[in-house]
């Protein structure tokens, strides 16, 4: 479904050239829950941004169902993000002046799913908070709305950047549960970036990054349950 072939990404910081990704190769399949692990500065977020069409690779190819993502125009990338990708951020990025339901609706309408916005809110257990604004919700609730917003577009690829990074263990586990369900039930490819190695247990695939390079790729045919994770 999604292939990274010899992908590199360089940034110019002042007069220096920084290699954020260096000749990265991997593949992600439908319904697969992938965890990308690595310390700070290892290139995790850069990788996620390129996957999501928010950034372009300097070299190499990114293929989604054999379509060359790296060669798409700005407008085509918008279409890709709109139709294929769902994003979950560490700090939620909800629109402050829209209610929980409206935050989901604004994304869902892009794929004509806005009538099901309430359904997605129910899925994350927040149907009684639909008229609340982000500032009236806890961090966990906001992240659930953020996930519901991503899922409401029925994405084929769900990208999550440290989605539990700002949450306590109980709430964090709830979030992991929802993401796992998305992969299992909706056949969505979920890619989660984290620096918490414990989350590797629940993934089908674990990609470890170090200094912009792939350190290892591990396949896991029997992922653990979320309850088993030591947060």
């Amino acid at each position, binding site marked *: 479904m999604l292939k990274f072939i010899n992908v590199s990404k360089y940034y110019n910081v002042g007069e220096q050239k920084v290699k954020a990704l260096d000749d990265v190769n991997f593949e992600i399949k439908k319904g697969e829950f992938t965890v990308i692990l690595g310390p700070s500065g290892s290139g995790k977020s850069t990788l996620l941004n390129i996957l999501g069409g*928010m950034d372009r690779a300097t070299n190499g190819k990114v293929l989604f169902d054999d379509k060359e993502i790296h060669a798409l125009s700005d407008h085509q990338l918008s279409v890709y993000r709109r139709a294929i990708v769902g994003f979950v951020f*560490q*700090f939620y990025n909800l629109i402050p002046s*829209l209610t929980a339901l409206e935050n989901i609706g604004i994304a869902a309408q*892009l794929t004509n799913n806005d009538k099901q916005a309430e359904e997605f809110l129910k899925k994350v257990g927040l149907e009684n908070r639909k008229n609340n604004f982000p500032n*009236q919700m806890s961090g966990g609730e906001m992240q659930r709305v953020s996930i519901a917003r991503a899922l409401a577009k029925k994405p084929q690829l769900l990208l999550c950047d440290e989605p539990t990074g700002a949450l306590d263990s109980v709430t964090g586990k709830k979030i992991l549960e929802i993401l796992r369900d998305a992969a299992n039930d909706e056949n969505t490819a979920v890619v989660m970036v984290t620096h918490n190695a414990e989350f590797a247990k629940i993934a089908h695939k674990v990609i470890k990054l170090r200094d912009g390079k792939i350190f290892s790729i591990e396949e896991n045919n029997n992922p653990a349950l979320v309850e088993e994770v030591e947060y």
Partner: protein
Amino acid sequence: MKYLNRKLFRDILRNWTQFFSVFLMAFLSVLIFVGLQGAWHGLEVSLEEYINTYNLPDAWVQSIVFSENEIEQFENISGVDTVSSKIRVTTYMQTDESEDKYIILDTFNNTEMDFKLLEGRAPNISEEGVWINKEYANANSISVNDYINIEYGNVECSLKVLGIVQSADRIYFTGTLEYIAPNYSNYGYGYISENTLKNCMKYQGGANVLEIYGNNKELRNMAEDILGSKFVAYYDRNTLVDVSESLDRVGQIKNLSYMFSCIFILLAILAMYTTIRRLIETQTKEIAVLKALGFSNIKIGIHYAGFGAIVGLSGTGLGMAISPVLSSFVLWTQKSMFSIAEWKISYSLSSLLVVLLVIIICIVSALLAAKDAIGGLPALFLRGTVEKKGRKFILERIGNIWERFKFEHRWAIRDAAANKVRLFMGIVGVAGGMMLLIVGFGTPDSINHLVEKAYTEDFSYDKRLDVASYEDAKDKYSGQWVQISQARFSPDDGYNRLLIVISEGNYVNMRTVEGELIKDDGVYITQGFAERAHLTVGDEIVISPALYDTDFKFTIAGIITSETNQGAYIMQNVWEEAGGKFAPRTILVDESISNDIIEDDKNIVSVIEIEKQKENAYDFVDSLMSVFLMIIGFAILLVVVVLYNLGSLNFVERQRDYATLRVLGFHKNELRNITMIENVGTTLIGWILGVPLGIWFLDLYVCTFSTIRLEYTSYVSITTLFFASIVVWLASMTTTLFVSYRIKKLDMVEALKGVE
């Protein structure tokens, strides 16, 4: 503080666009207020000095002739210090040109002259010759020692030009009431000794003008009582056009300065306040860092006040430095209209107060913006994850309307409602800009309309001929006869006005407020006079015309909408039925009376073509045009800066939301549409408010031009509204383009990273 100061300057350099807009507002506020004040206060001071130095009389009385006894009676009026008599005659200067050239000559008896000698020999009653005014001399290429041929009655006289002069009682010299603006090429004034007048021009009469120094409120009444049927006219400094126009102009520019600066400064303050606040609010994390490092609240406060102080001081400083240029420019536009000995620029304390106000606003805005972070706990601001508040909008409570809005529109509306200051600034900015633009475009349009109406609709003659004898001319020309004289009206507004008696004809077409022409059912008075004297249709009015011993009582039959020559109109037959004598000296004719016919008729003493009157009136409009262009320029700048600020703030505050929507898959044009809807909404509300406010402001402003003689009324044309609207909407659309450009350049990764 060394490092804090470095930070301060680097922050200013980094955020120079926002600082520049505050700087620009501070600069423009001061420039406009101080610049215009320099002009009107300068004109006021220049006039005052000129009037005092050259001993301007307080009142003037005209009679057919003054006897010794009458002069003595004037001298004995309490409050009157000095009375000086002179002879005034209107003469013609013979030239090769086809146009008539007139010189109004006054006699002088003293060697201590009351006018300014610019060139030539000092006045001396024993010398035979003439001293003529600078502007007429320049317009007709006359120099000292040249000889000019003067004609008075049927006597011709060649006089040597002994000097070039300027007089304080001829500051705004039109030569005749028929012209609105000076016409230096055709009308001049001069001074001549009584001996020269009598010897060379064979003048037989006595003094016909008294110059009175000193004041008595009843002077007008007393003059009429003393002179009886010999009384011709009475003027004081408020009614003698040659002087009053200049004093009125001070008031006009003063009004312009206050009204325009008031709106401009209010808008500028609003823009400065919001911009500085937003700018400092982006620094809350830095304030928290400084606090965490151990900087005292006072030091941090001084540091942030420095942001306001630097931008305020530099903006106002430059404004003050450039303001003399603006003052000089405004005064320069007036030099073609007014003849003053020395043009000065002068400022008063209020300029300094405005400068201080602008600086204080900048500093206080900065301090207020930093206040929360300075007073709060550093950890709270260091965390930087304070969620913006979402709030329900009032519209959401009304039925299902809210549900019909798209999500992005709900976002835009709630965001606008949550940022009331920003919204208010946008609306007020657009409405204020619209007001200023309507005044900028509308004032010259109103004056042009007045000229067009006066010389196309109200009067439709081709030429007006002044004749020496009505009897000789009445059967010779077909046209409309007009008898013009000064008259006292009771009740009145304290001033003598013109009484105009007209014969049957088609050249005087003024209409009443109800749209009726003047008929033979009573007296018709002009609107300006009616308003000032509180007169209405049906009121009785007593008219005491000059050169009459008797009074006439009439019923007011209508109020006419004429802007020129404020006074009363009456038909010949009504006048004669009441016992008045109809002996007009002016006839209005069409183009069939050719110049050849006129040249052959010695009975015609002067000719004025309506086209010349129109041209002259447009010269008057032109003298103010540069000032209006300046207003338009500043108004455009204001609208652009306010809307640019608004767009910039809008983008900065919602950058994260835009980035999120881009990540969700919104296309750039969809985001542009959202900003456009918001911008259009703000502009629409501002525009809707701005149109009636602008019309009201234009009316208020144009009315300040009104004088005792001329009544100015506002005229709002579609062109004015169209151009004002075009500017506002173009500025608004440009802002949308600017925001969409920034959306286009938005780096989603960076924008979202910033949050963390």
